[in-house]
């Protein structure tokens, strides 16, 4: 039963924090093709919250189980998957680093090799997440402060994803960074934008991916926001929320300055002050850095 050890590398983040952008880069890096990879064929394809993944590796249908029962089985699902794959596998995950009712980490410790954790200024996350969910920014700000916030937690219907507990934005960040410990590689969205070669190369080394500067440069060029927008405009993007007008929107830093009211900025800072300061998003005198 131990042959699943250390196989999974999680691509973990609160939504709208650079995870998909990294997957575009990763897909282009490993493909090594001379044309940009198609955004509807991104790697890794495995999503931790996928109902189909659970049904395949649990041996029992999630639709016959309660949310808590599903969570209790999820660590074993990832171990089963890791045991069968026999190599490092990358899995995207939006769940916070939580524990099951028995105190077992949702992302099985035994199956985990490590995680790349993507973090982004919560002021920008609020704007981008609101656009993604086609809701108003104030609603998103409330959700980002809610320690009970989950995706797909509907008891009365079945959807393609399992319940995923996100917690608040601050709790999501600290759950991963403090929960997983030294096997975690942190990537700030702002560093990905401002120093892409250095930042993406750091992740390449951590993940033991092909560390070839030319390949990295090319993969970065193919991951440019303009290229992603062009593809989405031409052929759509299957990971876009049904109600959102687009997925790849701006990809910039500081868009919050044009959208958030003074009260909304104050509310976000009040809700997330400690974590924002810890990761360089807020100066000592409470001024936003980006």
């Amino acid at each position: 039963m131990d042959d699943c050890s250390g196989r999974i590398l999680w691509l973990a983040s609160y939504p709208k924090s650079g995870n998909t952008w990294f997957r575009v880069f990763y897909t282009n890096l490993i493909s090594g093709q001379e044309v940009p990879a198609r955004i509807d064929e991104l790697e890794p394809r495995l999503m931790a919250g996928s109902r189909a993944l659970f049904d395949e590796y649990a041996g029992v249908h999630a639709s016959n189980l309660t949310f808590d029962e599903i969570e209790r089985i999820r660590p074993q699902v990832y171990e089963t998957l890791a045991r069968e794959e026999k190599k490092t596998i990358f899995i995207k995950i939006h769940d916070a680093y939580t524990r099951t009712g028995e105190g077992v980490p949702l992302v099985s410790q035994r199956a985990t090799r490590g995680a790349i954790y993507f973090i982004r200024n919560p002021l920008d996350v609020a704007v981008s997440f609101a656009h993604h969910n086609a809701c108003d920014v104030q609603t998103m700000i409330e959700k980002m402060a809610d320690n009970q916030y989950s995706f797909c937690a509907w008891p009365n219907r079945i959807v393609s994803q399992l319940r995923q507990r996100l917690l608040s934005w601050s709790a999501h960040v600290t759950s991963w960074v403090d929960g997983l410990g030294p096997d975690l590689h942190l990537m700030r969205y702002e560093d990905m934008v401002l120093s892409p070669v250095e930042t993406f190369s750091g992740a390449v080394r951590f993940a033991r991916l092909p560390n070839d500067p030319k390949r990295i440069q090319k993969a970065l060029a193919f991951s440019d926001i303009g290229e992603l927008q062009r593809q989405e405009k031409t052929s759509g993007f299957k990971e876009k929320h049904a109600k959102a007008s687009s997925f790849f929107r701006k990809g910039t830093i500081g868009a919050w300055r044009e959208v958030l009211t003074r009260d909304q900025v104050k509310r976000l800072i009040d809700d997330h002050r400690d974590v924002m300061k810890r990761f360089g998003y807020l100066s000592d005198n409470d001024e936003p850095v980006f």
Partner: protein
Amino acid sequence: MKPFGLNIHSMIPLPGCTEQKETPDVSIRFGHVPDALPGATLTRACSQECSGRFLLIVDHVARYLVENGESITIQRSPEATDDELRLFLMSNVWAVLLLQRGLLPLHGCGIKAGSGAVVFAGPSGNGKSTLAAALMNRGFPLITDELSAVCTNGQPMLLPGFPQILLWADALKKLGIDSRKLVCARPALLKYIVPAESRMVANPVFLKRIYILSVNNGTDLAVTSLKGMRKIHALIDTTYRSHHVEGQDLKNVHFKQCSDAVKYIDVKQVTRGADPFDIESLVSLIMEDLQHG
């Protein structure tokens, strides 16, 4: 009626099963079930299996052991209700039993349209049962819910399953069915058992078409016919938890079943937007396609 054409002798009452005097094809009894299957060749988080044997463990419900397509032993947990025991028995457990008996189990619901059977297949959450129930309300007889057993000796025949359909609260609401008189499949789930005995076919029906239901983030509804190898792969992919095929050491048999069956049946892909799930438009599309396609 005989669900799946089987004489079933069961210590737990099953819908549609009456006491049979004939020698049973399948015996279901309560007894000791081990917590591991020695010699298992395929393991999942809750199950272990090898050729002819399958063990399923559902904490706080039961352990189930299926052997050679003929016997199922259940060791129940004290807190489990009969409905809970039946829920897992009639889904994952039954699918393996059917495989062991040489049938092709598809993850889908079947209705009778004209003289032939139509199966709506696809992953959980894509609207198979909701669509079947909506068509049942329009007078199409139900053949099976969730698990479609196809006999592939010659022209493929779809066997009548258990006379009920499971629907989530949201689906009941969409279909205008009052949930207050219905029983939940498990006390903690808003998933209801809708009895369908009076609206079931009694005998196998030849399978003429499979619709694979898929969901995307758009809003358009579309039907596309699949051809050649894509038909075979669609059947392989919609086999009820296809890993059991490997676990039961039936890969070659299964491929032959799928490739033989597609000679007789149309396979079509139906794509719809995820949100909102417009059941009325989907029903209209299917009815039109059945009439003209």
